[in-house]
């Protein structure tokens, strides 16, 4: 069994061997010896608690990752948590601020039936674009696209003169009759034809340009 190691500051631990001590007068050396005979209180330290805390500190130091300072090790998980929270908050903000994708409104064409006996408005000379309304009969015309182009030109000219374009005309910018509108026109025409087969105002054959 090896000898217990001595914990001393250096080899000349005994202060009586210090050469400077010999320079003291005898009176001071006597006083020094009397004070040195007193022993400091050794019951002030909680020995059990100190040994427990020291052992725990030793184990913590043993399992710690070598090379990393203690402060860095302690800040690793809080830093990771903060970073992930910041990323999540950023993504949530981007999601909330994302522009709303709106559907293009479907073009609706008002289809009205002109009462019998009312003259059809001239399509070649539209007097006021604000009053132009496409009728069922217009839908049955074979030159409906030409009519729409005329209305579009008139609306553009009206807007160019400083007038506000009529909403209904503006909505017909992309207007071609949709299949649903065609079906509505056909159904309406057939009903009209069934009611009065001889007094129909529609002068376009029903089966013209329609394929089922």
């Amino acid at each position, binding site marked *: 069994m090896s000898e217990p190691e001595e914990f001393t500051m250096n080899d*000349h631990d005994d202060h009586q061997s210090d050469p400077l001590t010999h320079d003291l007068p005898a009176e001071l050396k006597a006083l020094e010896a009397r004070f040195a005979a007193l022993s400091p209180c050794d019951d*002030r330290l*909680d020995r059990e608690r100190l*040994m427990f805390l020291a052992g725990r500190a030793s184990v913590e130091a043993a399992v710690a990752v070598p090379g990393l300072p203690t402060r860095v090790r302690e800040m690793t998980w809080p830093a990771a948590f903060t970073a992930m929270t910041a990323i999540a908050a950023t993504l949530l903000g981007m999601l909330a601020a994302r522009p709303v994708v709106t559907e293009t409104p479907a073009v609706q064409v008002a289809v009205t039936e002109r009462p019998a006996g009312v003259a059809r408005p001239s399509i070649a000379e539209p007097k006021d674009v604000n009053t132009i309304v496409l009728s069922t009969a217009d839908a049955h015309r074979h030159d409906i696209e030409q009519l729409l182009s005329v209305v579009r030109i008139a609306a553009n000219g009206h807007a160019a003169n400083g007038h506000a374009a009529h909403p209904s005309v503006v909505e017909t910018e992309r207007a071609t009759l949709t299949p649903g509108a065609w079906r509505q026109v056909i159904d309406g025409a057939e009903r009209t034809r069934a009611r009065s087969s001889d007094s129909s105002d529609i002068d376009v054959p029903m089966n013209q340009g329609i394929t089922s």
Partner: protein
Amino acid sequence: MDALEHGSLSRLLDEHGAALVLYARQLCDAPEDVVQEAFIRLMRQRPAPDNVVGWLYRVVRNEALSAARRAGRRTRHEAAAATRREPWFKPAPDDALDAAAAVAALESLPIAEREVIVLRLWSALSFDEIAELTGTSTSTAHRRYEHGLKLLRENWMICPNPKSSQ
């Protein structure tokens, strides 16, 4: 060098614990906490310091000065009440020198002289080590020691040992 072993810590505590507490008491109001923290820091050291005792005294001094700065924020009354009641030395009935009178004489010294005397008499440090610890030269440490002893003698003459006077 690896970490300090458990048995070595116990031996260190037996040999230097009381002297470290006495030294820390000269500098702050909570010497036990300071010494305990120093030992805990010693166990965290990887590797352990070569000069363990010198390292302990250096850590205790730094911690005690920091604690004294923190305690300075408290009121003077609280600080005085915290330090006045605890004895410094074991009672020695057979000894001619009374412990309470010795404490009173030591407390009358300036802190620089008192620090050197405590380190010299009860920690058994050489003047070179005291000089290194306190950041002075060896001759300054010795001069303070001798001056402190003279002051102690003067105080002792004014207030002699109550036991010897009986």
